[in-house]
């Protein structure tokens, strides 16, 4: 019989602390299955950020580091530098990766540090009550923009498209969605393998749902997620080959 729960999950801490229907649960479940399939549970270290992602502090039965806000990537880079045989995963939300911690992610990609960054994007700052974030799409409703995000606040932030301009050729950059869990699992698996085999940077952006702050039920959440998928195209984002400005 197929396992109902990944082996790498810590069963004592379940039910976990995320809200009902949270996309973090789906992402961490597929991450757990990916870790199980690669058999790297005993040599993985999991770094978590501030924001909703910190609720995963006792989620896995693997070593976990709680870092400062936005500083998950540099902490995991430092860890990986000292312990090159371990597998380092930096797990964060869109606030930690694209707002306060953008420079850390960019420089890790620029230096081609061998860490796997998993960024869960739900289009708002969910832990503090669903305020507008850089990833909120124009016209999308959030707590601080009840009539839709105004145009002067800019478009939705496309992180992978930005990172591909400076990343190394070996880097693996992709965008997946919780509406396709098996694709999500394979992307996470590929990102981890890229770290282990190629010793390179890998970046996975996961489009996610937030039923609590969107104030929607499951069906409405997934239809809003499909609108989000239209704005943020899914799939692997190839690294820009010509890098005149960088080299």
């Amino acid at each position, binding site marked *: 019989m197929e396992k109902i729960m990944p082996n790498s999950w810590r069963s004592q801490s379940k039910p976990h602390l995320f809200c009902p229907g949270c996309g973090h649960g789906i992402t961490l479940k597929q991450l757990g299955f990916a870790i199980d399939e690669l058999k790297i549970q005993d040599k993985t270290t999991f770094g978590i950020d501030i924001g909703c992602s910190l609720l995963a502090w006792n989620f896995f039965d693997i070593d976990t580091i709680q870092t400062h806000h936005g500083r998950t990537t540099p902490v995991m880079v430092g860890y990986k530098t000292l312990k090159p045989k371990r597998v380092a995963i930096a797990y964060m939300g869109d606030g930690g990766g694209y707002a306060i911690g953008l420079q850390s992610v960019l420089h890790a990609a620029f230096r081609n540090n061998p860490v796997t960054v998993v960024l869960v994007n739900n289009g708002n700052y969910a832990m503090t009550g669903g305020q507008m974030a850089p990833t909120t799409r124009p016209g999308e409703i959030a707590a601080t923009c009840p009539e839709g995000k105004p145009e002067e606040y800019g478009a939705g932030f496309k992180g992978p498209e930005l990172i591909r301009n400076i990343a190394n050729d070996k880097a693996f950059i992709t965008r997946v969605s919780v509406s396709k869990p098996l694709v999500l699992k394979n992307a996470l698996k590929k990102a981890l393998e890229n770290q282990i085999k190629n010793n390179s940077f890998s970046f996975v952006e996961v489009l996610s749902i937030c039923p609590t702050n969107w104030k929607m*039920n499951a069906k409405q959440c997934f239809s809003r997620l499909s609108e989000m998928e239209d704005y943020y195209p899914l799939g692997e984002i190839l690294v820009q080959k010509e890098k005149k400005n960088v080299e």
Partner: protein
Amino acid sequence: MLSNTKKISLTLTGEGGQGIQTIAKILINAAVDAGFEVAYMPVFGVEQRGTPSVAHITISDKPLRYPKFDIADYVVILQSRAVTAAEKYVSPNTKVIFDSSTVSVSDLPKTSVHIMGLPATKIAYEQFNPRSFNIIVLGALTKLLDIPEKNIWQMVLKVLGKKFKTKEIEKANNDALLYGRDVVFETKDFTKAIFKAKHKAVIFKGHNKHGELLPGRCKGCGICIAKCPVGALSFSSDLGVYATPIPQVDLERCIACGNCRNYCPDSSISIEKDS
């Protein structure tokens, strides 16, 4: 009881999302309107749902110099996972009020002697909307503390007024408040904690398929139901860990595609074909 005692300390405990801080806000504002001095300290974690949420309230007829207290006169426990948060404030003299339809008597703090049951979840499910649960508790509490009904209802309208979009919702909440004020607390025969999640797994078997569902983990988000391609899943009358309905499976229609297993954020459901 406010009329004959000078100072009352009250600790409200429950789970994030149950409305603990909302009823605390209504209660203290109504007490201020009635001419009392009030100190209110909300305590809750960073999570939006599912962890203890505590409100410490002191009501007095003289100005309060110090807002904290070691032992509460009244402790209200609305969820069994919040018992640990309340334990510290219970002494043998404390009156413990608990939701007898979700918290079983054996879960209560060991030091509690005066226990009073209020099956608020059961009343809310059977007679009102499940969401009017906290209004029933508010009604029962304000009756106990002798705060006039008029003050309370004005405060409910002030705090929650925007959420009452139609007159019907407003009337249902008024009914729930009045019902809560008339509730007689159980002191001997307590309602069984029927709304507590079962720990045992629900096993599905038949039509060449088998599977399991863990109500102790299911939070009732409904993703499995929304993502089932043949509509074999629907909500049942049993309840999960957040007192929300858990799904049931029509095994005849189920094609064992594994969608529910892949999507479930809490890893609580799995159905597959017999090998």
